[in-house]
């Protein structure tokens, strides 16, 4: 049963070996060169499966990967019934919002410390289930401890908050940084400095902002 048609993939809910699963299929894009299209779909599928599993071994909650079919650009993984963070946030008070984003910051810290950069940190890619935050959508992840890559990861998180949650993006981002620093310790200093540089490098960010 199709439950979501995203920009990149279709998500189906179904059963696989007696388990409730999600089948994520990256669909071919008619607007893309066919060689490029195949390359993107296969590499992202394989990368996503690998990173979902690796993130979990680091202690970051993710769906369990049951099977991968590269020909179909398909991943079969456990079903997480919780809503995306994006849908939960508007109904939260400041205290709860702060708590949640400190935890998000910690989890991103754990990923970075473990050598994984998520590559697409948005509140649509985090699911809230029984007070645990599950990370999904690792298709753009990278294996690196580069300050630059880590900085871009955090910059993207901030940008996502600013575009979709502008009413409380500052509190959310500040809390995120608290949690991130808790895990990354002194390593965080250079990374956060780079985040500011990346922001200014972007076109047309005034000196004041």
């Amino acid at each position, binding site marked *: 049963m199709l439950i979501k048609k995203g*920009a*990149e993939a279709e998500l189906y809910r179904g059963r696989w070996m007696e388990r409730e699963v999600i089948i994520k299929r990256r669909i071919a894009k*008619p607007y893309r060169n066919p060689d490029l299209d195949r390359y993107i779909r296969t590499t992202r599928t394989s990368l996503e499966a690998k990173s979902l599993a690796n993130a979990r071994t680091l202690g970051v909650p993710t769906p369990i990967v049951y099977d991968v079919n590269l020909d179909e650009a398909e991943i079969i993984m456990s079903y997480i019934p919780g809503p995306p963070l994006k849908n939960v946030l508007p109904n939260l008070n400041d205290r709860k919002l702060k708590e949640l984003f400190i935890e998000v910051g910690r989890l991103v810290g754990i990923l970075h410390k473990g050598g994984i950069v998520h590559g697409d*940190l948005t509140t649509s890619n985090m699911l809230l289930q029984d007070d645990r935050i599950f990370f999904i959508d690792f298709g753009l992840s990278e294996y690196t401890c580069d300050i630059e890559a880590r900085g871009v990861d955090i910059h*993207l998180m901030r940008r996502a908050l*600013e575009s979709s949650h502008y009413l409380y993006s500052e509190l959310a981002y500040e809390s995120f940084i608290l949690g991130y620093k808790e895990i990354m310790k002194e390593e965080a200093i250079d990374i956060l400095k780079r985040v500011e540089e990346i922001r200014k490098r*972007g076109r*047309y960010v005034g000196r004041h902002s």
Partner: protein
Amino acid sequence: MIILGIESTAHTFGCGIVTSSGKILANVKSEYVPPSGGIHPREASQHHSLKASSTIKKALEEAKINLNEVDAIAISLGPGLGPCLRTGATIARALALLLDKPLIPVNHCIAHIEIGRLITGEEDPLVVYVSGGNTIVSAFSDGRYRIFGETLDIALGNCLDVFARHLGLQHPGVPKLEAMAEKGRNFIPLPYIVKGQDVSYSGLLTTAIRKIGQFDQFDLSMSLLEVAYGMLAEVAERALAHTEKSSLLLTGGVARSPRLQRILKLVCEEHSAKFYVVSPELAGDNGAMIAWTGYLAFKENVTIPIESSYIKSKWRLDEVEIPWRK
């Protein structure tokens, strides 16, 4: 009411005259084309000061009005190249003082969006704004245009222009590059860089330039365009899915690209959204879009005193309040 708009953010000096009903009475521009290489800001600004009076005069003639019939002056204060912006701003301030009429500050990026909305009549589209200096995916929400994707480094038009120059193609490079790409047969892998909602073109450009001479130029042109447009299409599609807007508007200089139009039309079809593109004469930088956006701002009482009408070379579009939209 009649508004005169001045545009001078980069290579184009433009003067546009529009009425409050959205009628474009004149849209005259003079484009600086460097003898070789890219735009040198100082040389472009010298071009602007040389061409300003004849451009404005011609616009008034086309509009069949006298200068004193103008009710307000709109000026594109940014973002753009400092020397070019200063030239346009000086002229606009002088006109406002001379006529004793209000000066209206206009953000250049917002103007590209507003002229697209005026021309297509589409009220609330997801906007894909691509030019030599900008690559932005934006949509209106709660009083401002929010950015749902942009380039992390150079703009799409910049990437394609520089590559075209390396192939020895004369300005304007993009149409010639597209013609070459039509003859490309084999896809050459190039860095496809999408980071979250954003794209990055600088690594793609460097790699493509390095491959000149190693591969067939037609294949290389085709591959570069497919990768560059593909990246943009992907972030546009993500923004479309995320914002759930029911239409997409393509605007800015690169909006003239037939290949890019075809690609984004396909993206829209996948999401049952309507596809709109700004007309070719209003795609590139022009004064009419500044005048029209100036009018929208002016009717909400947005003006700026001469003494604080500084240029803002890095003025982001999401910093601007949009009181004329609810």
